[in-house]
C-alpha cells in the first residue's frame, strides 16, 4: 500500500476532508485539513503511522493571510516519510482543539505554541508557561509573533510557577536547582518523597532559554550555521548538519558522497566522545572515580582528534551548506585510524573495570526503569527509546549515507540504567566500525565547496540522528532569501518528561545516576 491510499483511507474512515495532499520532497508530505479536522487527523496519523508527535509548531502568517498556520509532524518508518498535518487558524479566534489528552507527546509543543504565539490549545490539561518564566516575563507578550518588539513593560508579572503538590503524612519536598553543585547546566527539580523513594518529580526547565528560534529569523543562511552550532554545544555537529540538510533540500543542493561520508565520520566521533563521557559520568555518580577519570581521558583523546581534523574540539565551523569546510587527506585518515585503534584498546579496559565491579553493577542494574509502554506514550526518541526496546534510529530508518555501509542499530530491552549504559557501549563500538567503513568512502580535496549555493524561497525539514536522538530543523526561507522561521526540536525535548517517570520509586541518591544515564541537554531543550 502506498501512503496515498493510507491517507485516503484515513480521510474516509474518520470523516476528514483532506483539502490538499502535497509531496513536497521525496520524504516530506504535507496534508492540509480544516481547523475542525486537525485533531482527528493527528490522532489518526499517530495511530496508523505508529509515531508520536515528532514536532508541532506554528507560523505567523497574519500579515499576508490573517491566519496562523499550525503544523504537526509525524514520522513514518514504513513509508520513509515525514507527514505533516497543516491547518490554518484565523487570527481573530486564535485557538485549536488540544491534542494533549489523547497524545501526550503533544503537551510540551502546545505549551510552547501558547506562550510563543498566543494561540490557545482548548481543553489542554496543562497550560503553564514553559520557557518564558512567569517571574520575569509579562503575560501577553508573544516573542515569535512577527509584530513582537523587545522592550516591554514589567507589569503583569504572574509570580510563582504552580508545581504539582503531593500531600499526605510524612511527605516532604526537596527542591534542587537551578544552580547545581557540579559544573552543569541549570534546571529545577522538585522531588516529593516519603522516606527515601521518590513519589513525584517535577522538572522545570527553560533556565537557559536564549530565544534561539527568534534569532534565526531574518538571518542569512550562512550566518545561521554558526547559530545552529550554539544550540547545544555537545551536539554542535548534529545540529549544524540537520540545519544544513534542511537548507540543502530546500535549495536543491546535492551533497557529494564523500562530503556526506566526512560528515558521518564527524557525527560518529561526536557520538563517541559523548557516549564515553556519559559512561564515565555514570561511574562518577555512583562514586567510582577511577573509570570516570579513565573515560575523561578517552573523551579528551577524541576532542584532540576532532581539533586535528577540523580545527575545533567541538566540531564547530566544520559544516557548510553543500558540504564540509575541511579536507580529509591521507594523513588525517591515518590519524583517525591510529587514534581509533588506541581508543578501542582503552575502551576494552574501561569495560572490564566497570563490569568487574559488583557494587557498581548493583547500583546500575534495575535502577531507573523506563518501561516500553511509558516510553511510547511519551514519544521518547533516540538512545533512551532504544534502551527501552523501541527500534527507531534515523540512520537505519532514513538511511541517507548510511546505506553505503554495513550498519546495525543496537537495542536493549530492560530500560534501566544498565540498559542505557550497555547501549552506549554498543553504539560506541558500532561507531568505530562505521568510521572505518566511511574512511573508505571519503576522498581528498573534492570535499571543498567551490560554488556558494543560492538561497531559494520555500521550506524543508532536516533530520539527523545525533547521539541523543533525532535533531529536527524545519526551516522556511522567504522570497528575499532570509530565514523566515526555524523550528528546532532537540531529542531532549521529547525525553525530559520521561525522566520524571523513570525515577519514580527510586531513592533520591539514585537520581543523579538516572539523570546521567539519560544525559539530556538543557540548552537544546530550552532553545
Amino acid at each position, binding site marked *: 500500500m502506498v501512503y496515498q491510499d493510507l491517507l485516503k483511507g484515513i480521510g474516509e474512515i474518520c470523516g476528514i476532508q483532506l483539502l490538499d495532499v502535497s509531496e513536497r520532497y521525496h520524504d516530506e508530505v504535507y496534508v492540509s485539513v480544516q481547523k475542525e479536522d486537525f485533531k482527528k487527523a493527528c490522532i489518526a496519523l499517530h495511530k496508523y503511522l505508529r509515531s508520536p508527535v515528532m514536532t508541532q509548531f506554528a507560523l505567523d502568517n497574519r500579515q499576508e493571510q490573517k491566519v496562523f498556520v499550525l503544523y504537526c509532524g509525524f514520522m513514518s518508518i514504513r513509508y520513509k516519510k515525514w507527514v505533516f498535518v497543516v491547518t490554518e487558524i484565523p487570527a481573530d479566534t486564535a485557538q485549536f482543539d488540544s491534542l494533549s489528552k489523547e497524545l501526550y507527546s503533544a503537551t510540551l509543543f502546545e505549551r510552547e505554541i501558547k506562550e510563543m504565539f498566543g494561540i490557545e490549545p482548548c481543553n489542554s490539561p496543562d497550560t503553564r508557561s514553559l520557557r518564558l518564566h512567569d517571574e520575569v516575563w509579562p503575560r501577553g507578550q508573544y516573542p515569535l509573533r512577527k509584530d513582537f518588539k523587545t522592550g516591554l513593560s514589567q507589569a503583569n508579572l504572574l509570580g510563582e510557577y504552580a508545581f504539582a503538590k503531593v500531600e499526605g503524612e510524612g511527605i516532604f519536598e526537596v527542591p534542587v536547582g537551578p544552580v547545581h553543585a557540579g*559544573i552543569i547546566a541549570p534546571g529545577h527539580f522538585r522531588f516529593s518523597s516519603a522516606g527515601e523513594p521518590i513519589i513525584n518529580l517535577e522538572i522545570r526547565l527553560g533556565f537557559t532559554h536564549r530565544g534561539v528560534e527568534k534569532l534565526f529569523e531574518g538571518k542569512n543562511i550562512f550566518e545561521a550555521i554558526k547559530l545552529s552550532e550554539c544550540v547545544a554545544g*555537545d551536539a554542535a555537529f548534529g545540529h549544524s548538519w540537520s540545519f544544513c540538510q534542511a537548507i540543502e533540500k530546500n535549495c536543491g543542493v546535492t551533497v557529494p558522497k564523500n562530503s556526506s561520508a566526512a560528515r558521518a565520520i564527524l557525527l560518529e566521533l561526536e557520538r563517541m566522545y559523548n557516549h564515553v563521557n556519559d559512561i564515565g559520568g555514570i561511574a562518577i555518580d555512583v562514586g567510582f572515580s577511577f573509570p570516570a577519570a579513565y573515560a575523561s*581521558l578517552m573523551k579528551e583523546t577524541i576532542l584532540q582528534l576532532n581539533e586535528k581534523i577540523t580545527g575545533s574540539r567541538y566540531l564547530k565551523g566544520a559544516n557548510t551548506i553543500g558540504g564540509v569546510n575541511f579536507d580529509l587527506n591521507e594523513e588525517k585518515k591515518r590519524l583517525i585510524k591510529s587514534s581509533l585503534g588506541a581508543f578501542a584498546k582503552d575502551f576494552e579496559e574501561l569495560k*572490564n573495570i566497570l563490569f568487574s565491579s559488583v557494587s557498581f553493577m548493583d547500583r546500575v542494574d534495575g535502577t531507573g526503569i523506563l518501561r516500553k509502554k511509558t516510553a511510547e506514550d511519551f514519544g521518547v526518541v533516540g538512545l533512551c527509546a532504544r534502551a527501552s526496546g523501541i527500534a527507531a534510529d534515523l540512520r537505519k530508518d532514513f538511511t541517507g549515507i548510511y546505506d553505503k555501509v554495513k550498519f546495525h542499530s543496537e537495542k536493549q530491552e530492560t530500560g534501566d540504567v544498565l540498559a542505557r549504559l550497555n547501549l552506549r557501549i554498543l553504539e560506541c563500538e558500532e561507531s568505530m566500525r562505521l568510521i572505518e567503513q566511511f574512511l573508505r568512502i571519503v576522498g581528498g580535496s573534492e570535499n571543498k565547496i567551490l560554488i556558494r549555493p543560492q538561497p531559494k524561497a520555500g521550506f524543508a525539514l532536516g533530520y539527523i540522528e545525533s547521539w541523543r536522538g533525532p535533531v529536527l530543523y524545519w526551516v522556511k526561507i522567504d522570497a528575499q532569501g532570509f530565514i523566515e522561521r526555524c523550528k528546532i526540536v532537540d531529542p531532549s525535548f521529547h525525553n525530559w518528561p520521561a525522566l520524571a517517570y523513570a525515577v519514580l520509586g527510586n531513592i533520591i541518591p539514585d537520581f543523579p545516576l538516572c539523570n546521567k544515564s539519560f544525559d539530556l541537554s538543557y540548552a537544546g531543550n530550552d532553545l
Partner: protein
Amino acid sequence: MIQILKNRLIKGIVSQPVELKSLVKDNLAAVELESVGSELQKLIRKKFGRSLHIREVDTGSCGACDSEIISTTNPLYDVQRFGVNFVASPRHADALMVTGPVSKNMLGALKKTYGAMPEPKFVITVGDCALAGGVFKDSYYTAGGVNAILPVALHIPGCPPKPLEIITSLLTFLSCCK
C-alpha cells in the same frame, strides 16, 4: 580492584609528561602546561594562601564552555594539582566563573549566587557569549552578557576556549592583580 591497580600501574601518571596510549605522542601542549601550571601554583600560594576556589554558574551557554571547564579537571590538565578547585557552594568560593549570555531566567539565580559568596571575591567570564551575548546578543531574552550585571575581573574569550587557554588566562590575570 586488581584490575584497577593493574591499569593504574600500566598507565602511570598521565598528567606529567603526557603518556596515554591513545593520546598523540608529540603533544607540545603538555610541556607548555607544566610550565604554566607550576607558575600558576606559585601565584596562587602567594595570593590565596594555597588554593583558589571557583564556583561555576551556567547562565545559558550551549554547554561547550562548561564541557571545557570540566576538561581542565581531567587527568591530563588536572588543574587541581595547581591549587585551583571547583567547589559546590558559592560560600566556599573565591571566584565566580560564569558562562553564557545570562538568560532572563538565570538573572536572579546569578545575583543570588554572587551575593552568597564571601568577600573578597571576583568574577571570571568564560566564552564569547558571556562577554556581550555573542551570537545571542540581539535576543529578547538575554541580558547582554555578564558585564551588565556583575563586575567582571577577567574574561576568557573563545567559542569555547580550550582548557589550556583557560589555565593560561587565569595565570596571566593572577600575575597582574595584587
